[in-house]
């Protein structure tokens, strides 16, 4: 139990490091020195000190979006296990709770985007809704396959038994969850987090109007979501030492390694055309169905 | 060196030789020479009689002899017509593609003969498959000899559809191999036809049925059974006319031979009702579809191609009906169809050479311009529709008698309907080409040379003679083939 608290504390403290690592890797690939690893911490402190500007046409929904986003990210953290230690809360079927907590956060972000009444945010919200709808079957099917294989319905139970999963299934689900990670967190090849060109933004456009503390909440929630969805991917690695402290340490290192991999992916690919993204999500779905066949046979 | 091996080696050597000879006239004479040699060897084999114990790979049993006779008899006049056709072509500049050179064309023609002979003589399922695929590959360059949009389209469609069909037949091969692996007492799992028929009861029935379905679809594609016939009108209408004669008259028979052999296996295993129903179904559909499409044709070679589809349907119906009448009629019909279709395509080639158009509407008054061609056209029309005294009437009557004795009344009724449809279609299209006043732009036409019309006349006359009197040796050959199927 206390181990779970340790893990949550680590996550809260170290989550902003995740985007820092990704950006550093991207910068190094581009031949630049890059911003410091702790850049997001500095940004958060800076943003919290600033005042916020709200559009006169927005309502309470606009402020609620950022708050609920952070709240759901934090709650999702409570249900995900790390290597060797179970999550703080676990019940049978909690992967649904997890998936829909992330969905709720996304939903509130979309609502707050629509609330501004601007065309750009609406465009971003509709695209985000589309891709989220396409990625949901893959996510749930992948988790269901894992549940079927390990005969438990709880995320902790599933991931604790991951060394017993056959290698091809692990590989398929790894790729599936990797694609879903990139979709969920608006990374290349699904969306470019650096671009601010109107026609190409998906996630960035929804937070365009947030400023000051709201933006700080959103950025921090984004870092937490990176951590949480990264845990989904990293937990599949079938390696456990059995000792709690070492497992947590290695889990953190694995997450950092995954951040480096994401940075490499982002540096080596270009963003996909919008009408090719359903194909990518279709591939994720197909891979999860393949792993289903493997379990069924 | 047995006669069978000679029969194979002769066109193979001929093909390779012709590929390297650069002098056109020498090559064309070699073509006729090699086909004559093949014909003589075939007669020799027929006189010798069928081999009661054919080997594991190659052998000339009764079925092989009949189909060999058909193929060789057709190839000889066609090779004469082919040489004339090639001689008439204007010599162009250096051919742009490998398939546009005359040497490669002649080589492919003789290799085509080789692969057909191999298919007919093969006694092993795998070897038969190889040979049929080889016929597809060697005949594809023949179709697109003249570079044009339509010939390339026809050749590509032919190559792809037939290759996929034959891949289906390969699955059938595998299914048959699986069928042999169930009974532990069956130690020799060779796929020779005679061996399989001998041990038919030790094969797994479900897998034999699966094999038959795949063979029917696979070799049926090659044979031109509907609905797998879509390549046939294109390929047979765009190829040079002597090549069309070969494709219609010899190649379709080879594919039919494969289906016959599998049907024999199913009959030996006691599963013939399953296969006969399927054969009747595909046969009648081919006839009806051909009947429906033939009426709306605008090109006379395409019309002849649909007639081939119809006759292949008749052959399938004959095989699907048990009893001696139908089987004898089917074997006789294979011979007759080849003779008459060969004659018709060669005549069509003469018409194309004179009128320079493939459209039915633009060709009128053949009887006035070139009388012999016109007579051939009319007689061919009568023959292919089954009018006595041509032999097609005899074989079709025999098949229909067989249907009646086996009480397939619905099939008989549909067959008569389809024959009537085809007759209406052809009667609407063919006679008006021969009669009527010729158009003004056809004044200057080269005179008919005997060497041009002798091959189709020979084929047509043979059919006429066979309709009235069947020589004993031929009846023997056909009867032995029918007995081998029915036994």
């Amino acid at each position, binding site marked *: 139990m206390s181990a779970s608290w340790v893990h949550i504390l680590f996550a809260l403290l170290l989550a902003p490091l995740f985007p820092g690592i990704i950006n550093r890797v991207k910068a190094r690939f581009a031949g630049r020195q890059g911003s410091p690893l702790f850049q997001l911490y500095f940004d958060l402190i800076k943003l919290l000190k600033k005042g916020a500007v709200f559009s006169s046409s927005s309502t309470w929904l606009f402020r609620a979006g950022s708050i609920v986003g952070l709240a759901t990210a934090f709650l999702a953290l409570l249900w995900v296990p790390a290597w060797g230690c179970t999550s703080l809360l676990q019940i049978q079927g909690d992967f649904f709770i997890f998936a829909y907590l992330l969905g709720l956060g996304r939903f509130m972000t979309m609502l707050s985007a629509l609330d501004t009444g601007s065309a750009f945010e609406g465009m971003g919200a509709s695209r985000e809704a589309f891709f989220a709808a396409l990625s949901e079957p893959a996510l749930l099917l992948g988790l269901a396959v894992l549940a079927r294989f390990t005969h438990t319905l709880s995320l902790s139970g599933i991931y604790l038994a991951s060394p017993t999963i*056959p*290698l*091809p299934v692990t*590989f398929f689900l790894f790729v599936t969850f990797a694609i879903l990670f990139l979709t969920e967190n608006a990374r290349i090849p699904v969306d470019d987090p650096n671009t601010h060109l109107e026609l190409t933004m998906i996630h960035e456009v929804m937070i365009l109007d947030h400023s000051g503390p709201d933006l700080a909440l959103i950025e921090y929630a984004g870092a937490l979501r990176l951590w949480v969805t990264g845990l989904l991917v990293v937990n599949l690695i079938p390696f456990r030492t059995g000792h709690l402290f070492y497992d947590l340490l290695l889990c953190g290192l694995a997450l950092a390694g995954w951040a480096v991999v994401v940075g490499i992916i982002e540096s080596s690919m270009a963003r996909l055309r919008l009408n090719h993204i*359903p*194909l990518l999500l*279709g*591939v994720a779905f*197909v891979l999860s169905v*393949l792993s289903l*066949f*493997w379990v069924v*046979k | 060196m047995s006669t069978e091996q000679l029969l194979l080696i002769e066109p193979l050597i001929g093909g390779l030789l012709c590929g390297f000879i650069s002098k056109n006239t020498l090559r064309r004479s070699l073509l006729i020479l090699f086909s004559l040699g093949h014909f003589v060897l075939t007669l020799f084999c027929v006189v010798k009689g069928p081999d009661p114990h054919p080997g594991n790979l190659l052998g000339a049993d009764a079925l092989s002899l009949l189909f060999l006779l058909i193929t060789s008899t057709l190839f000889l006049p066609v090779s004469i017509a082919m040489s004339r056709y090639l001689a008439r072509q204007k010599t162009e500049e250096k051919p*742009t*593609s*490998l*398939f546009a050179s005359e040497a490669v064309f002649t080589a492919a023609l003789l290799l085509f003969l080789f692969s057909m002979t191999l298919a007919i003589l093969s006694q*092993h399922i*795998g*070897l038969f*498959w*190889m040979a049929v*695929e080889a016929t*597809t*590959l060697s005949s*594809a*360059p023949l179709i*697109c000899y003249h*570079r*044009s*949009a*339509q010939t*390339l*389209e*026809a*050749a*590509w*469609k032919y*190559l*792809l559809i037939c*290759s*996929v069909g034959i*891949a289906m037949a390969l*699955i059938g091969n*595998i299914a048959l*191999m*699986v069928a042999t*692996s*169930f009974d532990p007492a069956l130690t020799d799992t060779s*796929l020779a036809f005679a061996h399989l028929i001998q041990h038919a009861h030790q094969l*797994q029935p*479900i*897998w034999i049925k699966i094999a038959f379905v795949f063979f029917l679809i696979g070799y049926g594609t090659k044979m031109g059974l509907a609905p797998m016939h879509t390549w046939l*009108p*294109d390929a047979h*209408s*765009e190829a040079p006319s002597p090549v069309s004669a070969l494709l219609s008259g010899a190649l379709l028979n080879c594919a039919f031979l494969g289906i016959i052999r599998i049907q024999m296996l199913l009959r030996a295993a006691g599963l013939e009702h399953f296969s006969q129903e399927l054969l009747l179904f595909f046969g009648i559909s081919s006839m009806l579809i051909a009947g429906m*499409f033939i009426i*709306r*044709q605008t090109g006379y070679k395409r019309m002849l191609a649909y007639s081939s589809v119809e006759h292949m349907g008749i052959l399938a119906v004959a095989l699907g009906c048990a009893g001696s009448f139908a089987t004898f009629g089917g074997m006789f019909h294979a011979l007759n169809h080849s003779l008459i279709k060969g004659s018709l395509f060669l005549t069509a080639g003469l018409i194309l050479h004179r009128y320079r158009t493939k459209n039915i509407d633009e060709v009128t008054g053949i009887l006035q311009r070139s009388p012999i061609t016109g007579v051939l056209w009319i007689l061919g029309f009568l023959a292919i529709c089954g009018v006595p005294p041509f032999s097609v009437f005899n074989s079709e009557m025999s098949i229909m008698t067989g249907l009646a004795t086996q009480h397939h009344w619905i099939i008989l009724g549909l067959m008569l309907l389809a024959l009537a449809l085809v007759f209406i279609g052809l009667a609407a299209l063919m006679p008006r080409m021969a009669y009527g006043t010729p158009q003004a732009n056809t004044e200057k036409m080269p005179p008919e040379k005997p060497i041009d019309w002798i091959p189709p006349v020979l084929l047509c006359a043979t059919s006429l003679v066979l309709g009235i009197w069947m020589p004993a040796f031929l009846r023997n050959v056909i009867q032995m083939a029918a007995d081998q199927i029915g036994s």
Partner: protein
Amino acid sequence: MITQLLTAAILLLTLQMLGSARLGVLIRSVALQAGAMILLGIFSAHELPNWHEGLLLLTTFLLKCLVFPLLLRRALRETVIHREVEPLIGYTRSLFIGLVLLGAGLWIATRLPLPPKTINPFQLAIALATIGSGFILIVGRVKAITQTIGYLVLENGIGMLGFVLATGSPLIIEMGILLDIFVGIFVMGILMLDINREFDHMDTDKLSTLRDL
């Protein structure tokens, strides 16, 4: 374990071919698929292959993994366009049809009476799915070269079906089959080049002058 990985690789390659538009990727994938199949045949067998099986495997490997991609790339060199732009069956749809085919293959593999020497029913399902995917490529794509690659995939699937059902022909027959496929690809390649020269494109759906309906 290696057999599991190889089976997964074959499956993934099949699906990649269904979802990919780039012709170079297709050529490479079909060669890799043939190679994975041969390796699977070697590793699944209970004993080492004897000399004529080994010869057959070696010839198949040389032809399918080296010669055919070479021939296809030569045919590709003359064309300008290296992507399949507007297929008849879209890429996502092809992917899902491939999944359905795999499911159908699994269903068939469980229903059929399998011979006693069968290696693995799941591999039978994958062989059937590969055959079906070959069909999808032939029917649903427009460029002549993709149809040729579809034919190669079909032959790959049939080869896999052959060794999964533990059947074998005499060496000469198998070699003959390989020779036929080789000559077939050769002839298809020449025809493709001719079509490209004549029309300046390789889209077979534009070759539709000969029709009845």
